[in-house]
């Protein structure tokens, strides 16, 4: 089966495989490129940004773009471009934190529910259904309220909200793989449960999960923006794209252009995550190769 094949395939071949894929799929190439660029911006933010993101100047409020400020200044005279750049690390951190939490909770739960089955599966599925019946952001607001306002707490709550989706997906995949012959074969040979899960179920169930994780990265990004917009996200002085949009809302009539820079940043990043996810889905699913 493909799992045992890829395990013995060696890293060199994997890298070549990835390179070939990128050359074929323009969309994957562009989106991955943009994301890597973003990571670079986030890591080197302090070096790249032309000004400090927090340096205020009440005499230069809401200026249009100029030589000194390529994207103008905001309501406290701060350089918009620098804030945008320094918002990148918070944004990326937010998405990855939320998705990590979702994986940390959702994947094991899904694996256990699918593998063990029986009443445990029923109970878990019931709880998962309950959580899924909440509109996501409503639950996030509730959990944030319980944990306290802040970026980390907000993202933990988003992670908790996304965990059931992952759990359900992983459970479904586990059920499918469980029925494959080779699992029975392994059991006949006396392999322990843990071994079966790690060596056989996870590698085969993982592919749709990888796709889902990429899509969840985009969703987390949008969730962070929404929470910050509602005042439940990032705290000063850390800039965040969602909070920049929230501030722009108050100046919609006075300075409508304030909302474009952070909005585009969010859009491009979410788009890249999504595009990457779609490309991965196509690449990893053998039956879709000829579409």
């Amino acid at each position, binding site marked *: 089966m493909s799992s045992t094949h890829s395990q013995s395939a060696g890293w060199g071949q994997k890298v070549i495989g990835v390179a070939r894929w990128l050359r074929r799929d323009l969309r994957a190439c562009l989106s991955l490129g943009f994301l890597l660029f973003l990571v670079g911006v986030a890591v080197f933010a302090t070096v790249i940004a032309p000004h400090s993101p927090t340096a205020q100047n009440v005499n230069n409020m809401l200026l249009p773009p100029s030589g000194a400020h390529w994207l103008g200044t905001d309501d406290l005279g701060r350089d918009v471009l620098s804030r945008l750049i320094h918002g990148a690390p918070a944004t990326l951190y937010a998405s990855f934190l939320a998705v990590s939490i979702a994986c940390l909770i959702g994947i094991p739960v899904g694996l256990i529910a699918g593998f063990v089955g029986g009443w445990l599966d029923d109970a878990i599925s019931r709880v998962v259904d309950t959580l899924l019946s909440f509109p*996501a952001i*409503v639950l996030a607001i*509730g959990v944030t309220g319980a944990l*306290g306002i802040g970026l980390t707490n907000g993202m933990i709550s988003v992670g908790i909200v996304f965990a059931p989706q992952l759990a359900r997906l992983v459970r479904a995949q586990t059920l499918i793989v469980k029925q494959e012959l080779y699992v029975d074969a392994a059991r006949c040979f006396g392999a322990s449960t843990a071994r079966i899960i790690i060596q056989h179920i996870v590698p085969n169930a993982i592919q749709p999960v990888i796709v889902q994780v990429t899509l969840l990265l985009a969703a987390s990004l949008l969730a962070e923006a929404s929470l910050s917009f509602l005042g439940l996200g990032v705290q000063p002085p850390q800039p965040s794209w969602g909070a920049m949009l929230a501030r722009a*809302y108050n100046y919609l009539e006075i300075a409508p252009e304030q909302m474009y820079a952070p909005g585009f940043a969010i859009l491009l990043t979410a788009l890249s995550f999504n595009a990457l996810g*779609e490309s991965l889905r196509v690449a990893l699913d053998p039956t879709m190769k000829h579409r």
Partner: protein
Amino acid sequence: MLQIAPVVVLATFVVFGLMHLVPGDPAVTLAGDYATAQRIEEIRHAYGFDRPLLVQYWSWLSGALQFDLGKSLQSSELVSSMIAHRFPNTLIVVVMALLLSMAIGVPFGILAATRSGGRLDAAITSISSLGVALPNFWLALILVATLSLGMGLFPATGSVSVSKSWFEAMHHATLPAIALAAGGIAEVTRQLRSALVEVLSSQFVRTLHAKGLSPLAILWKHGLKNVSVNLLTVLGLLVNRMLGATVVIEAVFAIPGMGSLVVHGAVAKDFPVVQGVVLTMVILVVVTNLLVDLLYTMLDPRVGRE
């Protein structure tokens, strides 16, 4: 029926637990500007906040089962009448958004599927990716700045009750519906396209084509009927998602709907309001899913047999 009850009850318990986990004191809020230590204690006792949590929950639940959702802590208004009042404002936006999603998403999906692999397909797929990645409140801000404040075509904010004027109500709901629908259009297009492509390239359909059946007939008789199941799934998903997204949209457009009710209630720790609204939303989602499941079995007998 039996299946949804535990889910709904569990949901309300989760919310109840969450609200009470929050550090902070509703009694202080209720005392407001006139807080003194003594007054806060009096209020705490008068509202029963000093009772054990489970007792408070049971008291709410038993009331809810008799359709009494209690009174708002903030304004003493009946929660059930608050919801009844605000629900139509949310409903009109969500329904318009759903209709928009279908009206644009279905033709897009069909076009993309029938011209699969071509340039139109690529264009439509790209646009739908955009729709999913777009922060819907950003779209809302842009719509307000351009179509409303800029060109004056639509009112910027607020909502008008349907009972007053159908036209006015829809006029106010248009921009919010568009903002909500962006993601919906994308989702419908994408799901429909992939499901339709799968059907159209199946052996069965290819045989029909070879036999000389017109593409339109194939599309209608075999294509759409088969993918109606997928459409229903998407609808159910969209209802859930839109009820959530409406929270932010209502904030941008200052619509007095369920979304803004739950945000204000959560922020002010108005327990009865939050629990009432969440209960309503959860029931809506669960009932929608039930209906979807029901329609599944009607449309596709194979599903029922699983």
